[in-house]
């Protein structure tokens, strides 16, 4: 088992390196860093000197190593657009996105999992049909449309909730959080729901499919034949066994949440990483683009690693070996 953990970690490192390589290639080959940084007034001679100073004439590999080293130390370079350190720009925005993402994920789990279990256990109920129909539509409506509709309904027509911005925030150390103010929550609600809806429908469908599969298995049948009380059957046996494969997908979904936050942040003008990234695309601000890439990949890989380890911890088949 130790071997498995080590193997997974090596795989993760490999993926991160590959992503770093992509980001680095972006830096080097898309546009010329020098011209971006200096503008037209600087003379060619000065540009050459800058190039030499920044080590842009060094061989590819040494540049890549330096790049990676810098990243590991937290030096992410400077934005072409704002001339500020990218690291600062991103850390400024991380709390907003993370809070949004986590709340959205919690919403999707709190609603999605029970809904999935319910629709699996009562396949012919009227509620089940309604839920299934709703999720079908939910999967088909793009996130930004949901956002627009919510804004229209609650923001414009009813005027209950704000339609842009984060509301009041509180600073805790480095972290600027909006979870501690009432206005913060009011502002968070619509974006979180928007972001969560898509994940919710996916989760629900997944849980439902898995649960139905489990209910058909031999050990459930055997447990029924033994007269195990139905309640226990449904929850202790079926649901627990369903959760195991579901956990892995939840991990992937977290990555999806972070990614889809781009759209949600755009619709609600939520000042998070996604909005920053969008702006950087528009202005072809390569450093920010590249770093965003690496940061997202990092979150993703981390979450997946944790999920894999969780999997091993939960499923005894992966942990223990034969007795004889």
């Amino acid at each position, binding site marked *: 088992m130790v071997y498995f953990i080590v193997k997974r970690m090596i795989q993760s490192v490999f993926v991160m390196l590959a992503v770093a390589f992509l980001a680095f290639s972006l830096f080097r080959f*898309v546009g010329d860093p020098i011209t971006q940084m200096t503008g037209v007034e600087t003379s060619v001679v000065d540009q050459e000197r800058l190039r030499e100073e920044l080590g842009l004439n060094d061989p590819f590999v040494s540049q890549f190593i330096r790049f990676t080293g810098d990243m590991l130390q937290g030096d992410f370079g400077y934005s072409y657009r704002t001339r500020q350190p990218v690291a600062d720009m991103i850390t400024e925005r991380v709390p907003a996105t993370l809070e949004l993402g986590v709340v959205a994920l919690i919403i999707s789990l709190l609603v999605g999992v029970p809904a999935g279990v319910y629709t699996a256990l009562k396949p012919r109920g009227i509620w089940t049909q309604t839920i299934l129909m709703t999720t079908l539509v939910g999967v088909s409506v793009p996130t930004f449309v949901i956002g627009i509709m919510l804004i229209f309904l609650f923001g414009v027509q009813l005027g209950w909730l704000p339609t842009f911005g984060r509301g009041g925030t509180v600073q805790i150390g480095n972290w600027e959080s909006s979870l501690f103010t009432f206005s913060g929550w009011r502002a968070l609600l619509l974006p979180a729901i928007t972001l969560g809806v898509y994940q919710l429908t996916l989760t629900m469908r997944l849980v439902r499919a898995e649960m139905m599969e489990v209910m058909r298995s031999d050990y459930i049948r055997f447990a029924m034949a033994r007269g195990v009380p139905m309640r226990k059957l449904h929850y202790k046996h079926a649901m627990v066994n369903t959760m195991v494969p579901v956990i892995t997908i939840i991990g992937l979904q977290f990555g999806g949440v972070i990614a889809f936050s781009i759209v949600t942040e755009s619709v609600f003008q939520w000042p998070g990483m996604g909005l920053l990234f969008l702006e950087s695309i528009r202005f072809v601000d390569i450093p920010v683009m590249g770093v965003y890439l690496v940061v*997202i*990949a990092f979150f993703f890989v981390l979450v997946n690693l944790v999920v894999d380890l969780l999997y091993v911890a939960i499923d005894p088949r992966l942990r223990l070996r034969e007795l004889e």
Partner: protein
Amino acid sequence: MIAFLKKYEGLWLFVHSPSAIVAAMVATLIILGAIFASWIALVNPYDLASFSLFDGLLPPVWQDGANPKYLLGTDDQGRDMISAILYGARLSLIIGLSALTIAAVIGVGLGLAAGYYGGRFDAVVMRIADVQLALPAILTALLIDGIARGILPAAIQQDLRVAVLTLAIALSLWVNFARTARATTFVQMNKEYVQAAIMMGQRPSRVMFVHILPNILGPLLVIMTVDLASAILLEATLSFLGIGLPADSPSLGTLIRIGMQFMLSGEWWILWIPTLFLIALVVSINILGDFLRDIFNPRLR
């Protein structure tokens, strides 16, 4: 008997499933509309000469101030809404289908080979897939777009817009195909008819494409419908963000972005007509996809 029954059973199920019928009708209507857009539509939204600002902001036919020529009203540029959504749908479909095809060819090819050869080749393909998966679809699409913007000279950027968009979406979808193809190929590799073919001494390419491929088409078909919906949604999202198709050759997503400006000012149709149209299209594709999935997995019935 099973293939016949499946066809027959599939048809029977189809005929008795009201949602599937409605979905198919809606999807067909939209697709036909998109294909024949140039004949049906009143104006060509791309041809700047065919419409004028004076016709702009006209409401749909059941409201006051409407011009009966434009059944669903016009947008701020004077474009007929019906024409706009038909052309928009056409663009969305073209991009979606092309991206899907590219993704399918790459994904299935790699997945089949990975399943067949296993070993190191498989490991390499899986690592590449891992890297691709570490970057969610939107991110990949945005990145490709950003890179293209950085690399290509401004002159041809506009022309290549569609191609770049297609490539971006295709790259975000291929992994799905590859994984499914690989998993199903693994299953087939254990089947005896494959072993018989290999034993006989047949070429690997023949074993993969003549023997294995026909047997893994089922799940792949289901993925295709789901991914078609994803591709269309992705393109709409990108256009909405302003990174997809521009306002003078708008797709449905672009139209929605334009419409959003008018959300508060009362010209509701510019926003909601394209939105409803997009939803209808994607919902019908999803219903058909679900339907297909149920056919190929008889146990779920």
